[in-house]
């Protein structure tokens, strides 16, 4: 018995408190027991929730709780110092100190392997101390929250939080602590002083979000990952092109279901305590272009990067010192990761060409600086996920996707047809002249795009009535395929031992490209589909549900939320029992825990 109690109270690396485990719901029950007694005493409520959040984090990360506490204490006092500083100079100094501290913490835990690798390369000595460094769960999320808090005080958008317990509660609120959303102080701090208020319908919505999140995580994420996707990504060369492609599309669904599933549960649990967390996803695979995708995917990170990185760098106004500094830093990092000086030279060359263009054609300056800042933001966003070449490529591809869209969008119909046809011809020529799987993929994808663009242009030129839904479906498909392709690099770099992440991620990504681009056995497709029929059904079903119209979704959400409580309870029990049928192995950690 005593052993069981200590097991509940102490940190066990193998058993963090996960939303998908019974222990978490027992924990929530205990929290709600005390919460219901003290909810009207606001200071006590906040202090209690802060304590519970720290316990929750301790159960997930053990000794690393100290890193969280240090971030809270440092940011709290620097926040006060910024606001009380006499002039802008002192404010800037305090802000810099706060940001440097937060980023140092993040860099130490997250990029130590990378820096050790660089050190080893430069000095020839092994920097073995980093072998013991583990990444504290959720460090990227709470670090960004602390930075946004300091910057918002500096900008005068908010006042500092007077109580350290309140501030600690804001940073560490357990539903969103380990995988977001990244909550801005301006969106949350005002709630700290409000009494508990939750309508009956909003309670129903909270239950809905929790069940929705659990369904996404257990069925759409864990089940298809364990039974198919992880196997393919572990050994891509054992599977043919079709299976690799299926796994890649499956992963697109998995990562969405996993991450948004976590957010749904977090929002639901927070609502039960009367707190509103911001929306982190807005049906991202309904996006009709790459920029729109980033307004729908991981919204809290996109907004954070926009407000605290893109705009300070100059945004769409001009390029600043930071813009060029980032280019140089990214060049150096790319060189280190690839161990190839030419990569850095090419990046610098592109930057130099951009600079020359701006000098020669001042009217291009705005467009070029906007794109440089956007690409820098995406590259740093990629690097935020980890110091691996794959994450940089993933960020870079997304940046390029946005630039291409910006160039593509204003083109006339026939210019588009011409450009895409030319690119198709070029990639086809490349696939013949320099045989490589990547050219094959490019030729096929561009070919399909060219065909679609031509049909659309001919249709419109003929004066026929535009079929909106079809055109929108075409745009959504194009965006989804592009985003899925970038995910290849993202997934290949995930869940790896940091020491070998770079090499292994690169091998996985290149093997998958090779298989998808050059190793197809069409005659086996029926058998492959039959072999994975359950997985295929789940992927199709998941995507269909995702693409259901917002109005329909809202309607069934409200129907659920309006149910009598007894019926809602029965439905909840039924759903939980159904979800259990899909649990085949141990519960998998949420993908974004690693970031």
């Amino acid at each position, binding site marked *: 018995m005593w052993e069981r109690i200590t097991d509940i109270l102490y940190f066990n690396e193998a058993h963090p408190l996960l939303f998908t485990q019974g222990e978490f719901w027992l924990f929530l029950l205990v929290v709600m027991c005390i*919460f219901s007694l003290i909810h009207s005493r606001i200071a006590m409520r906040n202090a209690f929730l802060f304590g519970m959040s720290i316990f929750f984090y301790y159960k997930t990360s053990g000794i690393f709780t100290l890193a969280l506490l240090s971030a809270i204490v440092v940011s709290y006092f620097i926040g006060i110092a910024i606001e009380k500083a006499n002039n802008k100079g002192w404010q800037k100094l305090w802000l810099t100190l706060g940001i440097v501290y937060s980023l140092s913490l993040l860099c130490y835990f997250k990029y130590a392997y990378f820096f050790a690798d660089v050190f080893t390369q430069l000095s020839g000595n092994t920097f073995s101390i980093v072998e013991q460094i583990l990444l504290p769960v959720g460090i990227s999320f709470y670090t960004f929250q602390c930075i946004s808090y300091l910057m918002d005080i500096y900008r005068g958008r908010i006042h500092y939080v007077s109580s350290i317990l309140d501030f600690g509660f804001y940073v560490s609120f357990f539903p969103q602590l380990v995988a977001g959303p990244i909550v801005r102080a301006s969106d949350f701090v005002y709630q700290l002083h409000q009494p508990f208020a939750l309508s009956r319908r909003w*309670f129903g919505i909270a239950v809905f979000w929790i069940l929705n999140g659990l369904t996404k995580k257990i069925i759409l994420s864990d089940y298809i990952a364990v039974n198919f996707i992880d196997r393919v990504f572990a050994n891509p060369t*054992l599977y043919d092109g079709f299976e690799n492609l299926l796994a890649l599309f499956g992963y697109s669904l998995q990562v969405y279901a996993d991450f948004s599933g976590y957010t749904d549960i977090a929002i639901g649990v927070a609502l039960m305590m009367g707190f509103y967390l911001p929306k982190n996803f807005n049906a991202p695979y309904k996006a009709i272009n790459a920029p729109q995708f980033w307004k729908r995917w991981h919204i809290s990170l996109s907004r954070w990067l926009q407000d605290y990185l893109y705009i300070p760098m100059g945004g769409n106004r001009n390029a600043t010192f930071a813009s060029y500094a980032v280019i140089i830093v990214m060049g150096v990092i790319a060189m280190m990761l690839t161990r190839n000086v030419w990569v850095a030279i090419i990046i610098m060359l592109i930057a130099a060409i951009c600079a020359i263009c701006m000098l020669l054609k001042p009217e291009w300056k705005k467009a070029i600086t906007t794109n440089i800042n956007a690409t820098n933001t995406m590259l740093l966003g990629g690097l935020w996920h980890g110091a691996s070449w794959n994450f940089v490529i993933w960020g870079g591809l997304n940046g390029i996707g946005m630039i291409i869209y910006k160039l593509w969008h204003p083109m006339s119909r026939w210019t588009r047809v011409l450009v895409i046809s030319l690119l198709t011809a070029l990639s086809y020529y490349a696939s013949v002249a320099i045989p490589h799987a990547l050219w094959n993929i490019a030729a096929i994808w561009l070919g399909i795009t060219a065909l679609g663009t031509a049909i659309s242009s001919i249709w419109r030129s003929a004066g026929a009535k535009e079929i909106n839904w079809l055109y929108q479906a075409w745009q959504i498909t194009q965006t989804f395929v592009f985003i899925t392709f970038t995910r290849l690099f993202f997934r290949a770099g995930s869940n790896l031992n940091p020491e070998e992440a770079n090499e292994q991620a690169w091998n996985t990504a290149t093997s998958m490209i090779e298989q998808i681009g050059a190793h197809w056995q069409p005659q086996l497709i029926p058998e492959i589909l039959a072999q994975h029929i359950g997985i295929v059904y789940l992927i199709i079903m998941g995507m269909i549900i995702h693409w259901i119209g917002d109005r329909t979704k809202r309607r069934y959400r409200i129907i659920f939320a309006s149910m009598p*409580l007894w019926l809602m309870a029965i439905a909840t029990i039924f759903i939980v029992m159904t979800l*259990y049928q899909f649990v085949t192995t141990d519960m998998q950690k949420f993908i974004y825990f690693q970031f």
Partner: protein
Amino acid sequence: MRPNRILLFLAGILFSLGVICFLWGGQTVSMGIVELRIPSLSLFEHSEEKNISAEELLNESAKDMDLSASLTDSVNVDKANLSDTLDFYFSFMRENNARLHFPGGDTCTAILNPLFESLENLKTASNNYPQRVHIIHYGDSQIEGDRISGYLRALLQKEYGGGGPGLLPLVQNVGALSVSQSLSDTLTSFTAGGMLGQRASHKGYGAMAQFAHINTTSDPISLVINAHRVDGFKHVKLFASNIDILSARMNGNEQCLPKNDNIQTLSWRLKRTTKRVQMDLSGTSDILGIYIDADTGVTVTNIPMRGSDGTFFTRIQRAEMSYMLNELNTRLIILEFGGNALPLMKDSTRIEKYGKGLARQIKHLQAACKDAVILVVGPADTDIKVNGELQTNPHLEPLIEEMQRVTLESGAIYWDMYRAMGGKNSMKVWADHQPAWAAADYIHFTRRGADQIADLLWRSLMIYRDYWNLTSNVGENN
């Protein structure tokens, strides 16, 4: 809505779930065509775990293995230790988790002697007197990508010489890290077992349990083979049957086979050792396999059959299979199956039925290749959720017992992979190892894990080899 009502709701749900789990936990409720599993209360507890690392589990099996080589060396010097040395071997053969099980009892190892003799003879072989030994490794998805076979091949070729990957199909249904193949045309693969490939209208699959049919008169079909992680090769042999006419060109050397329904071969000896070869095929024929090796030494063929339970051999006509196995001097046939049978093993009747099927396969292979010894490698640990608790599939141990029983009764050798890797719940420990030795499905090994298990099998075989060496030397000296 007040917090106490929320608490009541939450408590009500958890209490109801608790009552359901308490009353019906672990049972299966049938609802029409759907069977609903009810979790037990252990869902709220951690499953019982082995408080042991994967290395420790392995060491349980491997602890005595390193002693073997030093003992056999020292015995030549000091015969006084002979009795102790023999005791060591007998102790290993009777107790070690990674030991082999033999038909006449665990110490009746004579069945392996012809294999060791033929391998030992390779050490005296030369280019003028080439000798070859072929080992064929059939298995399910656990050996896909040349896993386990590739590891054994590398060590065997290091010890006894040799090169090349052994037999390869014309159509590579499952990729392999050691060899990549590209074919200029899309051909259908006909397989006797597994999920990939179609079943043929006849039984002439050959020893690879698969073939591809070519039918081309104008443009030849071009096959390019690139070996990556195997030593270079110098000798290529093509097996074909149901030939209308077949022409094969390699390195400018074209050979033809006239119409013949029986199995035929074409051979090429390359001028120098290589890792890449291109073959252009035209005509109409079934291609049963392409064998690639060095002039002399040992080769290990990897034949993965995804989704198969290993009961497909009796679907293969014996004549072609026998011809290929004997032509290549096959001395060891490894059958690594059982994992795909497990989900269907709901009761003892099904387990017995599977056992009978396995016995028929062994007999079929024994009849096809009388010189080869058959080694059945049982399934690895497979962990599933039972009543909310992750544990070894409850049907695994009875299945393993039955497989071992019928294997020994059929005159073959059995290696218990499940016990060798650590027994009950060991797959979870392997999956938790950093870096992972098993996948999160708790069924498949990762490449690292496959190397570990292959190493264990290799070292176990070497113990028996050392024992054979020792007893042969003692016999000669006496």
